């Protein structure tokens, strides 16, 4: 170790002073200095200091540890959670220059968590406490001789499979009665016959994209199961904003560390490795999108083109899709040499469009459809039949579902719903049904 805790504190003081001058506004930072074993543990628990037990965390621990031991993977560049204060981890084994870079980077993330509107309903003040309490309750279910580890595990497996099939903005669920009252109102005031054939007894009355929420509310299951669903649904809602702002969040944090480190008056032996590290982090990945690279590039361009105020505005109101829609220009597409590709049955993987005059808009469109959680298929509850059969539909947008996965997920839904279920999608332009 080439530093002492005092060194970190001194550099932190310089960083926060500078950051304030830049107009950044973040939650207090709470750094925990950990060894690499603990770092990997924290990583697989998504940075949460207290997490319920599940084998999937054990699996990712083993995988990460193996890769780390083989030297195939360095440990994460940074790990910080959206909490207030923001809990961040610094790996003890890191050299001082890297800690400085990471601390500056964390200020950017925390500022983003605090100011981006996607995070408004994530309740960062209580997230750690909520998960700690959830962990205790789940442990109690495990120890309950009438429930036990196997049933709890099966429920958690199912919930994790559906974790992101919930609302993206943490909205509060509206009760069915409230929605129904609205429709009754609409029908009563129906002048142009729009609601003539509307079935007011349907459940739900509108497509319900909060699959987990619907199950939690309506399934005939014991309370402990409902509670576990609740925990996982909240967790999914908590993480959705991070999925939706991956590019922006990393771009903003990278710009923050880049600018702060430039102004820190660092001695050469610290500054040069920081620049090297920065370049490695924001380098493009061939054939893929590196969110650090794209986000950093775009924020730099916005600053050039519209000034720094525009950057602050974007970090507040945008999410990845709107960010790209609004700010990614033809010039950027050409400079980054973006192209879209897909697998064809006979041809293998071929390039569809490139960023030239005719192609760039299509490439941009394809890019946007895949970011901000766009790679997570959208499904919704269409109807709950009288016999309680649950009709779940996939909102097909031209991309087919992977059927092997869908079949397994169906089993999970069935287990949670505890009544029959039918699922509809399209495969190769044909309707497809499963139950």
């Amino acid at each position, binding site marked *: 170790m080439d530093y002492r805790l005092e060194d970190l504190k001194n550099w932190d003081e310089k960083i926060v002073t500078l950051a304030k001058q830049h107009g950044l506004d973040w939650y207090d930072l*709470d750094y925990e200095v950990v060894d690499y074993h603990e770092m990997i543990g924290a990583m697989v628990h998504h940075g949460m200091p207290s997490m319920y037990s599940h084998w999937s965390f054990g699996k990712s621990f083993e995988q990460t540890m193996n890769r780390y031991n083989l030297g195939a993977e360095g440990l994460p560049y940074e790990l910080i959670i959206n909490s207030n204060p923001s809990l961040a981890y610094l790996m003890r084994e890191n050299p001082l220059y890297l800690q400085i870079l990471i601390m500056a980077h964390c200020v950017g993330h925390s500022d983003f968590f605090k100011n981006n509107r996607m995070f408004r309903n994530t309740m960062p003040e209580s997230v750690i406490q909520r998960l700690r309490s959830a962990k205790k309750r789940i442990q109690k279910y495990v120890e309950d001789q009438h429930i036990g580890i196997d049933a709890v595990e099966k429920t958690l497996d199912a919930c994790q499979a559906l974790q992101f099939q919930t609302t993206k903005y943490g909205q509060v669920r509206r009760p069915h009665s409230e929605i129904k009252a609205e429709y009754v109102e609409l029908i009563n005031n129906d002048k142009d016959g729009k609601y003539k054939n509307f079935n007011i007894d349907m459940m739900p009355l509108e497509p319900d994209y909060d699959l987990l929420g619907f199950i939690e509310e309506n399934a005939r299951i014991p309370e402990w199961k409902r509670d576990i669903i609740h925990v996982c649904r909240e967790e999914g809602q908590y993480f959705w904003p*991070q999925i939706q702002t991956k590019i922006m969040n990393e771009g903003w944090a990278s710009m923050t560390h880049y600018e702060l480190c430039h102004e820190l008056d660092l001695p050469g032996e610290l500054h040069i490795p920081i620049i090297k590290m920065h370049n490695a982090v924001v380098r493009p990945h061939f054939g893929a999108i590196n969110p650090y690279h794209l986000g950093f590039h775009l924020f730099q361009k916005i600053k050039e083109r519209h000034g720094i105020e525009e950057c602050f505005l974007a970090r507040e109101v945008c999410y990845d899709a709107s960010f790209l829609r609004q700010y990614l220009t033809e010039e950027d597409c050409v400079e980054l040499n973006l*192209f879209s*590709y897909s697998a064809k049955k006979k041809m293998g*993987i071929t390039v569809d469009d490139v960023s030239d005059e005719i192609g760039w808009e299509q490439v941009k469109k394809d890019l946007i459809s*895949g970011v901000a959680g766009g*790679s997570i298929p959208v499904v919704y509850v269409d109807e709950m039949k009288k016999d309680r059969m649950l009709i779940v539909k996939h909102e097909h947008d031209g991309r087919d*579902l992977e059927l092997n996965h869908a079949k397994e*997920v169906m089993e999970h839904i069935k287990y949670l719903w505890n009544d029959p279920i039918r699922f509809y999608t399209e495969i190769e332009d044909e309707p497809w049904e499963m139950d």
Partner: protein
Amino acid sequence: MSIFREHKTVADRTATDRRRHKRKIEKAIREGIHHIVADESIISKDGKQKYRIPVRGIKEYRFVYGSNGKQVGSAPGKDVKRDQKIGDQQQPGQPAQPNKAGGDKGEEYYDVEITHQELAEYLFAELKLPELQKRQFSNIDTEKLKRKGYRPQGIMPRLDRKKSAIARIKRMKAAGFDSNLSEDGESFSFHEDDLKYRHYKIKKKPCTNAVIFFVMDVSGSMSQEKKFLARSFYFLLCQFLRLKYETIDVVFISHHTEAKEVEEKEFFTVASLGGTKASSALELANDIISKRYHPSSWNIYLFQCSDGDNFSEDNDKFLEEARKICSTAQLYGYCEIEPETSWMSDAGKLFQLLRPLQGNKLKEVRINKRDDVWPAFLSLMGGTQAED
């Protein structure tokens, strides 16, 4: 100003997660392992070898897109053209959260690598040798020295220097002796009472003696495939016994018209030509038992693999020897290997011949194909598969 904390607790935050994961893997391995029991590679005795076992179901499933979706990539400074081929494989979708969503789709199996030792452990985890009676244990009781604290008397080799030194220091401190103040460099020497000796007690641990006879027909009538099946079967028995008991004797007897005791290596590799006189092997076994393994202090197991053929004039003698084995052995397992016969054919001569003797001591099994090895093993050893 930010807060800085050193991580202090020694608690391993993912210990439970990892234990649960391991349990899941083990369960899946046990399910997958039966497919490889008869696989050729497991006979190889190279203990360093590792086996790849296809394991199902430790995947996390979510709704994910298949392969007909478009991806976008960047390639600054490279020339990329429309319709250019950039890969053969179906490109897996990029998950929104790489550490959460399953990256590769549709694969229901993936390989887990386990060692030779682990393989055997998995196989036999829930099995026990049948009727392992406690016999009279005389000659190979294991004696172990167990430490039992310290004593003021003892022999020099058992002197505990550290304890003794501590006792001396204690006495020195109590006496208020300070070597720095000592006028003429006077030292504070050891006293008889300072010396502490480690004390040991002999603990006798009764250990179950067992001798296992492996008998194999190596006559010309055993084809390659038959030999292979026999070897797989013995491998299982071998590994099982080695795993469960430390003090165990194994005797290998191979025979055609004549029987001889051989080394393990030879047993599994040497083939010879000629007819079959099964009695010769049992006679040799009985002979060895009477000379080396008295039934009053040994549990005796005998396993015989044969294709069932025998010289008919040898049958009476064979039966007589078999009876003798039954009277002394805990278990006489007879395994008949018949890979080439059709489903209509009768069991071979020896199988029929032994049928009247079948009971607690004699068990007969048949192996016709590789899939039969594991069930045959189970039925012989009287164990059940692990329930989990």
